[in-house]
């Protein structure tokens, strides 16, 4: 009984750590530019397909992984400088910028279908999900261990970047108050662009670790993206620790709901939990309460 509970809890943690990577990227972008990035999942899909192409052409895994990170980051940075900055100059409002990311998402979707086709393919991945280890009564696959490690390493690296480096200090200052940061000589455009790059790269890591568990098709990131989005909202959209907490809660809740209540309505339950939490705490679990001035 206890073992079953732990088993499903662990599965949930493994899924949750991927949601955490997606959610961290979304929160990083939201915190700095107040834009919800609807293209987050699609950038990850594109980069994962780049990995797939490189791996099929017998490049080694680290090369493919790095190339994907670079492609994902580059798309994020290019979109920020090429489109968002331009739209801001034209006086686009926040809703407009959110819709621009939706436009980017649609473009990437079309390009991926056109280049790689809509047929699902499987990513040749060095870590298998059939090799398992046994800890007491709980069985863990190599893949879910690697997934949890990726989530942990990604979160820790982001924490160090944001809290311990000069770039991170600049990022925090910019997200706190763009005007003041500019006055103090921080190149805010560059910092925001880099935030977009880092955030997109985090999404790409999630995509690459998800691909072996699912099949790779142009829409495979849609569901994880929605979950990551939901997790970010659950934790509070302006809080990085909140994103991790929200994602782990969501992953575990989803897995336990699937195990004990109903497998068919697993996703529905996950969303219902979020709507209920939001009704009680509209700013999310760890988010700061927003006060509005007129």
């Amino acid at each position, binding site marked *: 009984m206890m073992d079953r509970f732990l088993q499903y809890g662990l599965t949930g943690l493994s899924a949750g750590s991927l949601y955490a990577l997606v959610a961290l990227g979304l929160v990083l972008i*939201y915190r700095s530019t107040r834009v*919800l990035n609807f293209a987050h999942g699609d950038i990850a899909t594109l980069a994962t397909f780049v990995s797939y192409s490189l791996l099929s052409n017998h490049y080694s895994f680290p090369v493919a992984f790095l190339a994907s990170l670079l492609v994902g980051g580059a798309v994020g940075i290019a979109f920020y400088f090429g*489109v968002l900055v*331009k*739209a801001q100059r*034209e006086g*686009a409002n*926040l*809703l*407009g910028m*959110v*819709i*621009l990311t*939706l*436009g*980017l*998402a*649609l*473009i*990437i*979707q*079309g*390009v991926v*279908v*056109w280049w790689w086709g*809509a047929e699902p393919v499987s990513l040749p991945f060095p870590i298998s999900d059939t090799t398992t280890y046994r800890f007491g009564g709980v069985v863990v696959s190599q893949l879910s261990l690697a997934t949890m490690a990726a989530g942990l390493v990604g979160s820790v690296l982001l924490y160090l970047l944001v809290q311990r480096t000069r770039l991170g200090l600049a990022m925090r200052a910019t997200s706190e108050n763009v005007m003041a940061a500019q006055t103090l000589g921080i190149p805010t455009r560059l910092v925001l662009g880099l935030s977009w790059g880092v955030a997109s790269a985090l999404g790409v890591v999630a995509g690459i670790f998800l691909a072996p568990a699912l099949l790779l098709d142009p829409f495979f990131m*849609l569901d994880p993206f*929605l979950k990551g*989005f*939901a997790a970010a*909202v659950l934790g509070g*959209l302006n809080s990085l620790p909140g994103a991790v907490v929200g994602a782990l809660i969501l992953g575990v809740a989803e897995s336990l709901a699937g195990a004990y209540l109903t497998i*068919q*309505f697993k*996703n*529905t339950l996950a*969303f*219902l939990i*979020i*709507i209920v939490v*939001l*009704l009680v705490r*509209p700013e*999310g679990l760890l988010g700061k309460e927003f006060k*509005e001035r*007129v």
Partner: protein
Amino acid sequence: MDLVESYAEDLRFARRPAARVLLGLLLAALAVFPWVAAEHLVFLATLIALYSIGVIGQNLLIGYTGQISFGQAGFLAIGAFAFGHLRIWGAPFALALLGAGALAAVAGVFVGFPSLRLKGPYLSIATLGFGVAVYQVFVNWEVLSGGRSGLAIASLQPMFGLSGTRWTYYVYVLLLTGFTLAAYNIVSSFIGRAFVAIRDSDIAAEVNGVSLTRYKLLAFAISSFYTGVHGALYAQILGHIEPQIFNVLESITLFVAVIIGGVASIEGSILGAVFVTLVPKVFANFREMVPVVYGVTILLVLIFEPLGLFGRWLKTRLYFQLWPFR
């Protein structure tokens, strides 16, 4: 150029004689269209008419009230399946349509409640969750969705000796005209003003005596009524519905139509509906390019013409009104 001297004049639908003539010509053209155009074009026009109703509804919510909803596919599904079941139980077309709209409106009020506390991104995730939840309920609950085979809906019985395509066209265009008039009246009445006030600043609106609870819920109810009717009409024209039709992409298509057509404009909504209906037809041989076309158009519209196709139309009209001066 366009001086409005009294409130009654402001409410009038077509202010200048020329506008009245043009409106008459437009209606006449719509009436004659099925007799001069090929059958597949008439069918396409019917599709545009039903899509317009949904886009107008979505625009009332996004454009006028400023509440972002990504859950429109949920209302579409509710409308379509309510309509399907009512038809199968023997309800006449009009009654089934009304039932579909009403049920979607009730769901809209239900979804509207989170909007009282949530804003912007938080509201969009709540509505998105609603859309996903409705989708999964229909996919997994076979009593509602008719299982793997879906629901079959009897086609409309043509009247006055018209062919099926023409009869459907007339019914749909008549409905669109009715819903368009209703939307104009909502927008130019105190309800529409309340919506716009909420969009511009909800705190200021509340201070000025606009009941946020009443008008936000009303906006959701009206919008989802329109969307439910859209779903029902879509179900009728397809003749066969299954839950897979009403996925997240359908919500996004409605959203795209509003943005490209023109935010907070009813004529724009119809233009947007024309766009999202025609693009997949034009690119029928390059289906994977359809989202790219949508995406590129969104980028161009938002950077160069934030009012969408309707803004372009306004500028063109202004150019000709001022011609030969600039």
